[in-house]
C-alpha cells in the first residue's frame, strides 16, 4: 500500500529504489531521450535551418525527432527558432503552457537566446525571459550541425535525468507557474533610453 501511495505521490521517483526499479527508470529516461518530439515554433530565419535539419541531408529522424507536432499537447521539446517580438511573447508562453510534462526548451539562435543583433524595443531580449530554457544554441542562424549538437546535449541531459531531478528539488524550470502579480501602487517607469 505504502508503495502505491508513493507512486501516486511522486510518480516513478516514488518507487522504492532497487535494482529493478532503477533499471525501469533508466529505461524510461532512455526512451524519453530517444523519441522526443519537437513542437513547431519556427519564427524566422532559424526556422529555415530547423527545417533543413529535418530534411534528408542532416536528418534528425535518426534521433527520433522528425515528427514536428503542430499540437503542443503532443510535443516534448519546444525549439524556439527565431526572434520573439513583443506581440509574439504571450503566444509563446501560451504554447509552452499547453505542453505536457515533461517538457524541455531549446533556444535556437542568438535572437532567441539573447535578443541577438536586435537590441531594440521590438524584440524580447532572450526567450528565457518568457519560458525556462534548457539548452541554448548560438549562431545566426546556427548551422544544422550546431542544432544537432544542441539536441544531442539535451538528449544527454534527459538520459541522465539531471534536469528533471534538479527541477524537482529546486521547484524551478517547468514546475514554475507564473501567477499574476498584483499591480504595484506606483506604475513602474520604463525608460527607453537614447542610443
Amino acid at each position: 500500500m505504502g508503495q502505491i501511495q508513493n507512486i501516486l505521490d511522486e510518480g516513478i521517483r516514488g518507487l522504492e529504489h532497487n535494482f529493478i526499479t532503477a533499471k525501469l527508470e533508466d529505461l524510461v529516461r532512455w526512451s524519453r531521450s530517444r523519441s522526443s518530439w519537437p513542437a513547431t515554433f519556427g519564427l524566422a530565419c532559424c526556422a529555415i535551418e530547423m527545417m533543413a535539419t529535418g530534411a534528408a541531408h542532416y536528418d534528425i529522424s535518426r534521433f527520433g525527432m522528425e515528427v514536428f507536432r503542430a499540437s503542443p499537447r503532443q510535443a516534448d521539446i519546444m525549439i524556439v527558432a527565431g526572434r520573439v517580438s513583443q506581440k509574439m511573447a504571450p503566444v509563446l508562453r501560451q504554447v509552452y503552457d499547453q505542453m505536457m510534462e515533461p517538457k524541455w526548451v531549446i533556444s535556437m539562435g542568438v535572437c532567441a537566446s539573447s535578443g541577438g543583433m536586435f537590441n531594440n524595443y521590438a524584440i524580447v531580449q532572450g526567450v528565457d525571459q518568457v519560458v525556462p530554457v534548457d539548452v541554448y544554441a548560438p549562431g545566426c542562424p546556427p548551422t544544422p550541425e550546431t542544432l544537432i549538437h544542441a539536441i544531442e546535449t539535451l538528449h544527454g541531459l534527459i538520459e541522465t535525468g539531471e534536469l528533471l531531478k534538479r527541477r524537482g528539488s529546486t521547484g524551478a524550470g517547468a514546475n514554475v507557474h507564473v501567477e499574476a502579480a498584483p499591480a504595484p501602487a506606483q506604475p513602474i517607469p520604463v525608460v527607453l533610453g537614447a542610443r
Partner: protein
Amino acid sequence: MLHGCPTGDSRGQTTVFASVDQYVSVVKKLADDGYTMCYDLTAVDYLTHPGRTLPDGVAPERFELVVGLLSIEQRSRLRIRVQVAEDQAVPSLFDIHPGTEAMEREVYDMFGIEFTGHPDLTRILMPEDWDGHPLRKDYGVGRIPVQFKQADRGV
C-alpha cells in the same frame, strides 16, 4: 511643375512636391495619366534634420509622406513628397489605390500620422495597446545596456 506642384530631381528620379490639400487630386490625375500602381507609401520624421533641401515654395514640416507611383505601360516611376505637420491628418489614398491600406496603417503605427477615410486605421506591427510611435525620432531605440559596448557612433 506637374499638375500644379513643384518637381525636383533626386539622383535622376523625378520627385513631385504636393501639399496635403492637393495630394489626393494629384494622385488621381496621375492615376488617369497611367500611374496605376502605388508601390510604396512611407513617411520620414525630419525632427533632427530640419535643414534639408526643398524647392522654392515648399515649406518644410516635421513629417514627410513619401508615395511611390509606377506606370506599367510607360515603365516609369514617380515619387510624391507631402509635407505633413505634427498632428495633421492626411486624406487616405485607399479609394484610388486599395493597396495603400496596409502601408497607411504602418505609417500610422510607426509615426502617428492619421489618415482620414481609411477603412481600418489601427496598429498593424505593434500590439494594439502599444504606447508611442516607434519610428519617430523622439522615441528611443529601446536598447538594454550591454557590457563592453563600443564607443559612440560619430556623425
